[in-house]
C-alpha cells in the first residue's frame, strides 16, 4: 500500500517491492504489450509471409498517428483535450512541404526546426485561449480546429509542395537489422528526448497534478495557467511532428486534416489515458496505435471488407472503454 501510491516514480527505490508496484501501476500498458505480441503472432499465423518488409510498412504508416496520439495524451493528462490535433498536423504538413520544395539540405533542416516551433506556438495559442477565456477546452479546440484547418488551406489549396529527400530517407527502410524500421527509431528517439526528461522534471509532475485536480495543484503553488499552456504547446509540437511525418511519408503536403484527431482520442483511451486527466503515459497510446493498425492489417489479410473493419475498430474502442469503466466501478465498490 505504502509503496508506489502517490509517489514520484523512483523516489524510494527498493528492488522487488518496487518492481511489483511498477507492474501494478502499469498493468494496462503491460496488458497492451501482451495484446500487441498476440496480434503479431496472429498476423504471422494468418499470413506466414508477413515479415520484416511488413513491419517496415507498418512503422511508416503508423508514424503520423503515433505522434498524434502522443500529442493528445499529453494534453489529456494535463486535464484538457485538443480537437485541433488533426488541423495542426495539416498546417505543419503544408508549411513544411511548401517551404522545403526544391531546397537544399541546410534550408530543409531549418524548415523542420521552424515547423516544430510553429507547432509549439500554435499549440500555445490554443492553450492561451483556453486559459484566458475560461471556455471549456473542447469548445476552444473545436473552434480552433476550423482556424488551423483554414490556415492550412490558405497556404496550400491542394496536396502539393515537396519533401526533402533526407527527410523521406530518415523514416523509410531499416537501420541495422531489417526488423528494426527507422520510423520506429525516430518515434522512440523523439519521445525519449522530449517527453521522458520532462516527465521526470517538476514540470512533468505539475502536468499530472493539474490533470488530477486543478484546485489541489493551485493550492500546492503550481502555476495552473502556465502549466496548461505548456501542455498545449507540447501537443502542438508533437502534432507538428505528426505533420512532418505526413509530409515525409507521402512526399507532399496534405492540406485536409484526415481523421487523425478522432483516431488520436481513440488511441489514448485504448492506451490507458483517463479522459478525466492525471492518469496514463505516452507508451500505452503508441502501443494502442500499433495494435489498431495490426487489427486492420489482419482483417485485410482475412479478406474482410475494409469498411467492416472500421466498424470493428469502433466496437473494439467501445468494448475496451466499457471494460475499463466496469473495472473502475468494481474497484470503487470493493
Amino acid at each position: 500500500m505504502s509503496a508506489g501510491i502517490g509517489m514520484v516514480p523512483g523516489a524510494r527505490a527498493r528492488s522487488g517491492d518496487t518492481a511489483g508496484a511498477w507492474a501494478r501501476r502499469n498493468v494496462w500498458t503491460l496488458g497492451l504489450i501482451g495484446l500487441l505480441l498476440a496480434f503479431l503472432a496472429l498476423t504471422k499465423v494468418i499470413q506466414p509471409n508477413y515479415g520484416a518488409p511488413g513491419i517496415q510498412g507498418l512503422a511508416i504508416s503508423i508514424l503520423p498517428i503515433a505522434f498524434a496520439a502522443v500529442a493528445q495524451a499529453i494534453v489529456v493528462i494535463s486535464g484538457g483535450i485538443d480537437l485541433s490535433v488533426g488541423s495542426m498536423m495539416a498546417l505543419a504538413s503544408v508549411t513544411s512541404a511548401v517551404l522545403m520544395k526544391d531546397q537544399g539540405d541546410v534550408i530543409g533542416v531549418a524548415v523542420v526546426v521552424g515547423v516544430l516551433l510553429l507547432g509549439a506556438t500554435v499549440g500555445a495559442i490554443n492553450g492561451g485561449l483556453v486559459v484566458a477565456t475560461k471556455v471549456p477546452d473542447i469548445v476552444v479546440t473545436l473552434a480552433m480546429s476550423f482556424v488551423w484547418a483554414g490556415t492550412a488551406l490558405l497556404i496550400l489549396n491542394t496536396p502539393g509542395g515537396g519533401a526533402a529527400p533526407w527527410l523521406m530517407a530518415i523514416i523509410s527502410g531499416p537501420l541495422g537489422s531489417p526488423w528494426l524500421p527507422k520510423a520506429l527509431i525516430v518515434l522512440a528517439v523523439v519521445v525519449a528526448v522530449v517527453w521522458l526528461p520532462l516527465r521526470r522534471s517538476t514540470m512533468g509532475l505539475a502536468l499530472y497534478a493539474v490533470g488530477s485536480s486543478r484546485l489541489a495543484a493551485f493550492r500546492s503553488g503550481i502555476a495552473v495557467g502556465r502549466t496548461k499552456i505548456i501542455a498545449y504547446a507540447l501537443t502542438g509540437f508533437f502534432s507538428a511532428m505528426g505533420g512532418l511525418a505526413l509530409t515525409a511519408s507521402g512526399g507532399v503536403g496534405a492540406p485536409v486534416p484526415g481523421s487523425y484527431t478522432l483516431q488520436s482520442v481513440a488511441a489514448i483511451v485504448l492506451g490507458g489515458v483517463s479522459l478525466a486527466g492525471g492518469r496514463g503515459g505516452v507508451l500505452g497510446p503508441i502501443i494502442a496505435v500499433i495494435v489498431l493498425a495490426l487489427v486492420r492489417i489482419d482483417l485485410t489479410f482475412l479478406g474482410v471488407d475494409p469498411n467492416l473493419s472500421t466498424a470493428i475498430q469502433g466496437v473494439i474502442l467501445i468494448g475496451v472503454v466499457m471494460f475499463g469503466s466496469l473495472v473502475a466501478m468494481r474497484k470503487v465498490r470493493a
Partner: protein
Amino acid sequence: MTRTAGTARSADAPRSPLLSGSAWRRIIRDRPLIPLVILLVVLVAVLELAKPGIVNGNWAATTMRTAIPLAILAACQTLAMLTGGIDLSVGAVASMAAFLMATQATGQGAVVAIAIALVACAFAGVVNGVAIGVFKVHPLIMTLGMSLVVLGLMSVYQLAMVQSGTLVPDPIQWLGSGISFGFVPNSLVVFVPIAILIVIGLRRSGYGRLLFAVGDNPIAARLSGTRVWQVLVALYVMSAILAAIAGILIAGLLNTATVSLVEQSVLPSVAAAVIGGTSIIGGRGGYAGTIVGALILTVLTTLLTVLEMPEAVRQVLFGAIIVAVAAAYTRVTGES
C-alpha cells in the same frame, strides 16, 4: 482592483439611463436571446449592404430551409450538452437514416422505408444511451465509437445494395426542399412542432427539468431519487431520432443520399448550440438560443459566400467567431 470597479459599476447600473456594461451583462446572462437576435439582424443587414436586394422572401425561405436540418441536429447537441454530454454520432446516424430511407424506398415504398430508418437510428440511440448511462462510458468516446460503427456498417450495406440504387421519394423532396407561397419552406411543417415540443418541454415538463438537474449536479440528481441512467437512455434515443429526421430532411433538400451525407454538419451543430448559449459543461442553456445560433451560422455562411471569401478564410472566421461568442458567454455567466 478590477473586481471592486466591477461591483461599483453594477451598483450604479439601475440608475444609469443608458445601458451600461453590467446591464448588458445581465441581459446576456438572463435573456441571451436578445443579443443573439441583434447579432442575427446585424448579419442580415451587412448581407443586404454587401449585395443590395438579396434579402427578400425567397432568400428567407432558402435560408430557413438550410438552417432547419442544422437546427434539428443542434437540438441533439443542446439536449446532450444540458446533461454534460455531447453526441458526435449525429452525423453518422443522420446519414444512415437518409441512406436507409433512400435505398429501401426503391422496393418498399416511402412509409416503410422511413420506418426502417427511424427504427435503425433509435436502436443506435439505445446502444449509446445504455453505454453512457449504465456503463458510464464517456459520451464523447461512446458517440465517436458509435459513428465509426455506423459508418462502417453502412459502407458494407452500401456495397450490398449497389444494384438497388437510391431514390428520394417525392414527398420527402417536397418536405426538404419545397417552398410554399414564395417564402415558407415546407420543412417548417416538421420543424415547428419539434421546436415547440423541445422549447416548452425543457422549461415545463418534469423530464426537461431532469435534464438540467443531471447536468447541473449528477450526484445531487441521483441522491434526490432520479434514475440518471433512464434519463440518459431516453435522451440519446431522442437525439438519434431527431438526427434521423434531420438526415431525411437533408436527403430531401439535396435530393441525394450517401453514407456520409451529414458528416460535415457535426461540428457546426455543436457550434450552433454553443453560440445559442448552451454550456457544454451542462445545466445551462435552452433550445430557442440554439435555433437562432443555427440561423446565425447559416446567414454567416451566405455572407462569406457573397463576399467571395475563399473557403479557407470562411473556416478561419467561423472558428474565431465561435471562440469569441463562447468567451463572451463565459465572461458574463462567470462560469469557469
